[in-house]
């Protein structure tokens, strides 16, 4: 006996079907005749009273605004409860960029915290990568969010943490691998901000589309270690300076997040990062969007496949240790952040891009590099 997935009623699927068929008996004939159905509004499949405003890609249900809000919010609530993401009394840092995902996350977290008495203390953490024109505008949005949601806000910048803004990094590195720098630095920056704010957990606005794209990317790159980890809804605490983080919106479709923000008139900022057009993720995204247009459940299916992947015994996996320079979590002698920073500071922008692990040893022990090695690390694609 399947319960109706609308989340709102407690009817079984069979009862709903019988009810709908008897109420809309004439509908199939009208559609077949192809008359003025274009004008007949579709009714909400949950309350059957109001006009439907969207068709959910996840379930195929047509819902009105109120039922959609309820379904969306309650599904996030169920995700949080089922995965036991939080404990009462915890301080949670919401990673906020001013974009649609983090704005919706902040809104829904605050709402559910009150509605279901999670007992959490919520804060906003934002990262300033130093991208002129892009990040300045979105930070203004985060500051407005802080006022709107009445939550404390902490902004950490690459400049103060690493001594490099993304603008300066791109000048040295070019436009091909810059996203690697940004992603690696941002992860650590969020942790540093969280430690400064003394939060117990971080939550990010990664949505179902993001997770599915990551699964596809890791398959395409043959990165089995990441493929195993990337569908996890939360990370455990992995040592000092690393704050556990989770993704409450993991099963929320991007389309629904956009429509939630639109219908709720939430204030958010949306522009493509100026440095991202060549990012590898773009290819995975295009593919995913094409799949979604043919079969909307593809996104959930890919996540499900990723979650149920098992690795054959005997496959070599990296062992998690700590960076010998900064103590951050790392599977190599030096963490990625330190390697990239070293490359930037020494004018060797390709250090850390691709596999040059032998050279890491040389660099750690301050040995001089040969001319050939230096040339390999200096070449840059613009």
């Amino acid at each position, binding site marked *: 006996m399947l319960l109706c997935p609308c989340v709102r009623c407690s009817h079984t699927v069979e009862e709903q079907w019988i009810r709908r068929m008897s109420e809309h008996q004439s509908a199939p004939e009208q559609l077949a005749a192809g008359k003025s159905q274009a004008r007949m509004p*579709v009714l909400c499949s949950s309350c059957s009273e109001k006009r439907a405003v*969207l068709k959910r890609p996840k379930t195929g249900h047509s819902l009105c605004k109120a039922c959609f809000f309820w379904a969306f919010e309650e599904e996030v609530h169920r995700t949080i409860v089922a995965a036991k993401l939080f404990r009462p009394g915890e301080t949670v840092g919401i990673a906020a960029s001013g974009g649609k995902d983090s704005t919706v996350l902040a809104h829904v977290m605050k709402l559910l915290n009150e509605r279901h008495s999670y007992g959490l203390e919520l804060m906003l953490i934002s990262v300033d990568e130093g991208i002129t024109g892009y990040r300045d505008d979105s930070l203004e949005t985060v500051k407005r969010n802080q006022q709107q949601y009445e939550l404390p806000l902490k902004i950490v910048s690459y400049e103060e943490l690493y001594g490099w803004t993304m603008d300066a990094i791109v000048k040295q590195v070019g436009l091909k691998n810059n996203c690697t720098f940004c992603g690696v630095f941002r992860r650590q920056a969020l942790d540093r901000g969280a430690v400064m704010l003394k939060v117990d957990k971080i939550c990010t606005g990664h949505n179902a589309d993001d997770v599915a794209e990551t699964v596809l990317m890791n398959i395409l790159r043959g990165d089995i270690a990441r493929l195993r980890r990337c569908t996890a809804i939360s990370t455990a605490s992995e040592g000092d300076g690393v704050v556990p983080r989770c993704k409450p919106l993991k099963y929320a479709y991007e389309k629904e997040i956009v429509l939630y923000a639109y219908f709720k008139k939430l204030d958010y900022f949306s522009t493509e990062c100026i440095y991202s057009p060549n990012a590898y993720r773009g290819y995975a995204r295009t593919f995913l969007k094409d799949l979604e247009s043919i079969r909307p459940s593809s996104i959930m299916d890919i996540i499900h496949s990723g979650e149920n992947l098992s690795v054959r015994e005997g496959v070599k996996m990296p062992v998690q240790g700590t960076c010998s320079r900064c103590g951050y979590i790392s599977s190599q002698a030096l963490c990625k952040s330190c390697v990239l920073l070293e490359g930037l500071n020494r004018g060797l922008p390709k250090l850390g891009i691709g596999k040059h692990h032998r050279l890491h040893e040389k660099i750690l022990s301050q040995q001089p590099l040969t001319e050939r090695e230096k040339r390999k690390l200096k070449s840059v694609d613009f």
Partner: protein
Amino acid sequence: MCTVGSEGQTKPRNSSSLQGGAELLFDGVKEHHVTLPSQSEPWDMKQLLVWIQRNLLKERPELFVQGDTVRPGILVLINDADWELMSRKQLL
């Protein structure tokens, strides 16, 4: 995201709003109020999209349209409702 609202039957007046980044392809202009040229049959979405592409779209059409319809990933609302609620036949 592209939202479309319409009024009037004889001379279709149409207001389109672009947001979520889509407006960047239209010179940053978010709201467009247009009067479509009159024709014998009512306008359908396919014709509207062609008209938008010809008259309003300023750059990189491949980011907005793909074949007969919008590029996957672009959400379209008609009179504030998801166009996926309507059948393909009614629209295109």
